[in-house]
């Protein structure tokens, strides 16, 4: 293969890596939107908190002299998911549930306030500087002729693919097979009717926040390890990207969020292959505007009918 196509292949791999984590965050947006029709603006901050918790646990366990990397990672994952879910649940309980049923703008403004609050809460408690963690998972496979262009696929990237794939599969099974999952689907179909049929919709809504937050925490762990740096401001932009991904795929649809995340990740990687990387955000927001213009319901979304 020529140097150029190998270069593109490398960008495709990088794009899919980032894209799959966007997908994990986007699911949180899409599930919440699908059920209560609001944008959980603070979702990006949950991802950031997930990253911080991961760093704290890893640094703490390494400090205590634990050496087995898989065990450290599993503990970090479990703790991060637990803490992030607690945050997600609390946010819903404190900032959104009392506002349910009011004008659409009101919960959205509350969510923006929550996002600002959480960001500054972390700034105050953890400091606003970058926190760097030395790479834990190093090495990888290299393909191609070193004299032309070497495509590398690091173990970290493979780990991201595997964990994303496992979480997606578990989520799909949960949504399609379990009792709670069926209730979730019923809620997104018709909240009022579900309530009448004797399902505790408050519980189901809380559950969506918990599941979304747990997935965001997984993304936080993966991206935290991948980049090796975290600061309190990563949540804002990641949340925005993930929301773009959710809209791209059709908000409310879980496969759509995954597709949107992957497309967005690849688009960004391809953009930064040809333009200065600062412009990749410009391209992804441009993409969002174009999608909303020509296909407002997204790639896999159902067109929304406004009822009086």
């Amino acid at each position, binding site marked *: 293969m020529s140097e150029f196509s190998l270069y593109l292949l490398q960008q495709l791999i990088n794009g899919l890596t980032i894209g799959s984590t966007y997908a994990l965050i986007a699911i949180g947006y899409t599930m919440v939107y699908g059920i209560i029709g609001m944008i959980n603006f603070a979702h990006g901050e949950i991802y950031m908190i997930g990253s911080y918790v991961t760093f704290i646990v890893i640094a703490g366990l390494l400090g205590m002299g634990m050496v087995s990397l898989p065990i450290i990672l599993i503990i970090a994952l479990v703790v991060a998911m637990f803490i992030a879910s607690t945050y997600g649940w609390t946010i819903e309980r404190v900032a959104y549930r009392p506002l349910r049923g009011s004008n659409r703008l*009101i919960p*959205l403004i509350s969510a923006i306030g929550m996002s600002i609050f959480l960001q500054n809460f972390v700034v105050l408690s953890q400091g606003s500087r970058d926190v760097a963690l030395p790479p834990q998972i190093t090495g990888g496979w290299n393909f191609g002729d070193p004299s032309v262009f070497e495509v590398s696929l690091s173990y970290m990237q493979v780990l991201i693919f595997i964990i994303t794939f496992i979480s997606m599969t578990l989520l799909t099974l949960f949504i399609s097979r379990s009792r709670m999952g069926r209730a979730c689907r019923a809620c997104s179909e018709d909240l009022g009717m579900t309530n009448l049929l004797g399902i505790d919709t408050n519980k189901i809504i809380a559950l969506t926040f918990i599941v979304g937050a747990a997935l965001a925490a997984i993304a936080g762990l993966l991206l935290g390890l991948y980049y090796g740096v975290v600061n309190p401001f990563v949540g804002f932009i990641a949340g*925005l990207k993930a929301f*773009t991904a959710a809209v791209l795929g059709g908000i409310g649809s879980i496969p759509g969020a995954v597709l949107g995340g992957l497309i967005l990740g690849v688009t960004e990687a391809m953009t930064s292959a040809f333009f200065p990387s600062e412009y990749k955000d410009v391209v992804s927001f441009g993409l969002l505007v174009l999608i909303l213009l020509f296909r*407002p319901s997204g790639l896999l979304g159902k067109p929304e009918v406004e009822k009086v």
Partner: protein
Amino acid sequence: MNSSKLYNAVFAAGISFILACLMIGVKLDTDSTVLAVKGATAEQWAWIIGGIAVVFLSQLFSTQVDALFRAIPKPDIQALLPQQQKFATLKPWLIAAIIVVMMIWPFMVSRGSVDLATLTLIYIMLGLGLNIVVGLAGLLDLGFVAFYAVGAYTYALLSQYFGMSFWACLPISAGLAATFGFLLGFPVLRLRGDYLAIVTLGFGEIIRILLNNWTSLTGGPNGISGIAKPTLFGLEFNRRAKEEGAMTFHEYFDMDYSSSYKVIFLYLIAVLLVICVIYLINRLMRMPIGRAWEALREDEIACRSLGLNRTAIKLSAFTLGASTAGFAGCFFAARQGFISPESFIFIESAIILAIVVLGGMGSQMGIIFAAIIMTILPELAREFSEYRMLLFGLLMVVMMRWRPQGLVPMKRPNLELKQQ
């Protein structure tokens, strides 16, 4: 007190412990290149435990706490205002008195407070502009600061490259900001409310990224400095005139040079601009277009069935809001003399939104009131400045929960059937 109360209280306290202990109780710290975890100080733990105790007790005695809150009389700001009838005759005099006081006031106080008042006036202008979009038309715009930036950079660039004066640039800035608003609004205003919020947010980021990276034009992160100050019919407020032969303000009026003239002059321009904006918006609100904005906010489907063109109406609100931000931006650039993309971050949009929400969406009085609170309070509480944004966020959540209509809710003439 029953057992479910106790259960609730223990549960809430447990949740607060989980939330607090990992983020506040433990701090990441780089310890000679190795990332280490440090425990919190005893004082911080005391705070955490104190906070948890508050949560626990407030849950345990929630009925009593609620009763206590209900016992506090709600401040009825409307009642403080004079009666509607009397107010109508008094109003012109009151407005004249306020304007006179605002004109005389800066000559009696310190330079610092005049400067602060100018900043407040900028925020009032921005708040009024966003009020058209969010409060009246009900479109959530999270990238309002982008138009502010367009206005500021228009003046800065025109003044730097073409030496144009502030007064000539003021309408150009507003016009260009309005054009940007139009171009952005045209495609996206057909979308539903929450999509619009995200698209405008993205637009705000795009503008900031462009300003940051287009170094050859905007100077990138270094910004533009040495922006010319406004002049009074060509009279400068510097010690010496920039151009040969030109006169400065103090030479022309044969006074001693004082730097506070410049500050007061800027303040007076700001007062003038704010009065213009308030007047214009007040007229617009009474025109069919203003009525249409509010009608569209209340019920879009009803409006469409009555034959109102919703895209045109939304677009007019969006464009007018943007042009107000352009005005404010142009003035901001002139006042600072230096601008950089740092001044136009998302937080700035959030602050303006907070002003609108706090004041009461749609209510001009409320917004002026809120802008004054939001700019003066941080100055008064400087030792708490690091908590400023935290409290901002909290305030937005709390306001939405307890008083979504704002401090001074918008009042419109209405008739109510009294229930027997």
